[in-house]
């Protein structure tokens, strides 16, 4: 299925990450946006407010982020691809309804343009402190998909990917951007509509009378019937069976949660994306994501100029965590250097997967700016001593 020609603004543009993210959503078929203003994600909402009404879509500014998350779930059930965009404080508010989206298997995209936290923090300055929250922020047992763009171009591309993954696996997919990416203006190339593949909503192949809302296909993902067509859908946040009816037993819960977890874990090959370069035989591998990866580029160049064999493993998919990639790289290198604008979050995952085969050196930064690239360079130099 290709994107719609009328709505894709094909060509070369000079736009910021937030705008690019909005355009990516529109290309992917998003026609519903519910959000709440919050720095540094507000521009996504503003762009959607301008664009959606003329595309037959809906922009609504909800009263808070809790309502925004609920509204995009409702709109998704109403058949419109939907998205919201926020930052740390709003992301925290969205957690409960994110769980509802996971439990009811509702496709949608949630964008977090991270800023320095915790709490109100530094609204206009970058942070990357929500990475673990992206994985564990909602209560209970679940898996999530989260993608981290490192440029406005990627903000657009990965938003399209996020919509496709959300439809393919029926869950909310997260875009873990940050303030730098959101407010950075760079060249963004929007391809022709027919070059963009769109994953369509999975429609049931059975008659309404025979439809079971949570009967999975072979890939563990159920078809999603449209509302108002006689399918008599049932959804609930309670533990449920294939009919969508609450079943209050441990057995039913284990069966359901196992499927929700497996549908992501067993299909990891479709979701894992990294940028890997020169990791074989490297003295040190820089493992980073988002705007930190941009800063690390300078340090990589300088270190290589000094004769250090530096590999790069840039995480594009952060969750599910690219375990195999890190495990394999750990066997080929002596050390990982993990710069991130937090006190070491993804570094914990790298350390877990490195399993002692390579040192893991974190380059933390509590937030408010990107790293001084010199700090990353010094960590690389220390790593090879």
């Amino acid at each position, binding site marked *: 299925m290709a994107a719609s020609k009328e709505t894709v603004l094909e060509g070369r543009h000079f736009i910021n990450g937030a705008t690019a993210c909005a355009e990516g959503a529109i290309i992917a078929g998003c026609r519903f946006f519910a959000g709440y203003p919050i720095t540094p994600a507000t521009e996504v909402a503003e762009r959607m407010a301008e664009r959606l009404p003329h595309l037959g879509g809906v922009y609504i500014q909800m009263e808070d982020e809790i309502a925004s998350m609920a509204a995009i779930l409702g709109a998704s*059930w109403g058949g419109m691809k939907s998205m919201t965009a926020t930052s740390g404080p709003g992301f925290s508010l969205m957690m409960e309804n994110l769980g509802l989206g996971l439990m009811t298997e509702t496709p949608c995209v949630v964008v977090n343009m991270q800023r320095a936290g915790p709490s109100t923090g530094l609204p206009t300055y970058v942070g990357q402190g929500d990475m673990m929250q992206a994985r564990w922020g909602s209560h209970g047992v679940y898996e999530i998909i989260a993608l981290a763009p490192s440029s406005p171009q990627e903000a657009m591309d990965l938003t399209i990917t996020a919509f496709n993954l959300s439809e393919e696996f029926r869950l909310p997919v997260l875009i873990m951007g940050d303030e730098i990416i959101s407010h950075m203006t760079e060249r963004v190339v929007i391809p022709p509509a027919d070059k963009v593949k769109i994953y369509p909503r999975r429609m049931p192949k059975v008659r309404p009378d025979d439809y079971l809302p949570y009967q999975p296909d072979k890939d563990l993902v159920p078809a999603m019937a449209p509302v108002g067509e006689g399918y008599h859908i049932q959804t609930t946040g309670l533990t449920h069976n294939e009919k969508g009816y609450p079943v209050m037993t441990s057995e039913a819960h284990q069966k359901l949660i196992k499927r929700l977890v497996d549908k992501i874990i067993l299909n990891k090959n479709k979701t894992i994306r990294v940028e890997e370069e020169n990791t074989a035989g490297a003295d040190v591998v820089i493992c980073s994501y988002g705007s930190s990866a941009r800063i690390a580029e300078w340090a990589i160049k300088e270190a290589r100029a000094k004769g250090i064999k530096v590999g790069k493993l840039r995480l594009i998919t952060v969750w599910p965590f690219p375990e195999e990639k890190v495990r394999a790289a750990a066997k080929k290198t002596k050390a990982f250097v993990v710069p991130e604008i937090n006190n070491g979050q993804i570094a914990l995952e790298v350390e877990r997967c490195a399993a002692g085969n390579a040192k893991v050196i974190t380059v933390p930064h509590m937030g408010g700016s990107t790293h001084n690239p010199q700090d990353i360079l010094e960590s690389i130099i220390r790593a090879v001593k």
Partner: protein
Amino acid sequence: MENKISQHPLDEFIRQDRMPHIWCPGCGLGTVFSGLLNAIIKSSASDVALCDEPRPVGRETSPAGGGIDLNKVAIVSGIGCTGRIAGYVRFDGFHTTHGRAIPFATGLKLARPDLKVIVVSGEGDLFSIGGNHFIHAGRRNVDLTVVCVNNSNYGMTGGQCSATTPVRAVTTTTPFGNFEAPFSLPHIAAAVGAVYVARWTAFHAQKMQASIARAIQKKGFSFVEIMSPCPTYYARMNKLGTGLDMMKFYKDNTVIANEVKLEDISITRGGKIVIGDFIDKDRPTFNDLVEEMTCKFTPAGHAKPSGEDKQKLELH
């Protein structure tokens, strides 16, 4: 008449494989459920006379009158005893998170204006945790029907106080008596601009059913509060007897007063309950205003941008 097996007229609209429902003997929810179903069915008949204007050609919203398509009825509920209704109806039913039925329903309705979206939930769900969402949906005048069952406590979790528990009433979290003044729900609904506001009790089943039907068929944010007995908790803890005793109390201690000052009609212990059809008016809905100002809002299709629009859409 022969002695044959026949079916209760509402059985086909109920998920029989979920019956019996969980509500206690004497709980008014079954009566409300029955009234809701009858109101929906009544609204699907094409000969129901109503005063709303017919829909303009090309506008894919539900006809503002009878003749609603039963396949296009969607029930959205929150958490609590009342919230279980979404799971019992043979329509599209969405059992969402506590307090968040209204924003979910807003998203659903705006994505599919052709649906008849009815929010059915309890007073704790809609006005405590959900209060903020209620007032904004009312302010926006999204075309939703909200049916609120008010049993003066949080029944599902064992009888704690709620925002409508009368002063001095005893609940598990107000063992000395409730220190807090309760809301008047019709007052809040009217204050935020609901176009239809009514309060009845489960005893006033006919009026309740007619109000729900009116609310369903009316365009805009419509609100019906229904007082209902909670025999297991509220009635027992406040020595109000059985569910039947509370129904008889509603029969003998209610006053129908359509023109009353809504801020004065919160519930008091042992006092008269004022019920009636309080507000029935019209004002532009959210979608009306979007359409007026964007001029090209077509919910179901993609509008092709005009030449002028394309210029505006060019990224700068």
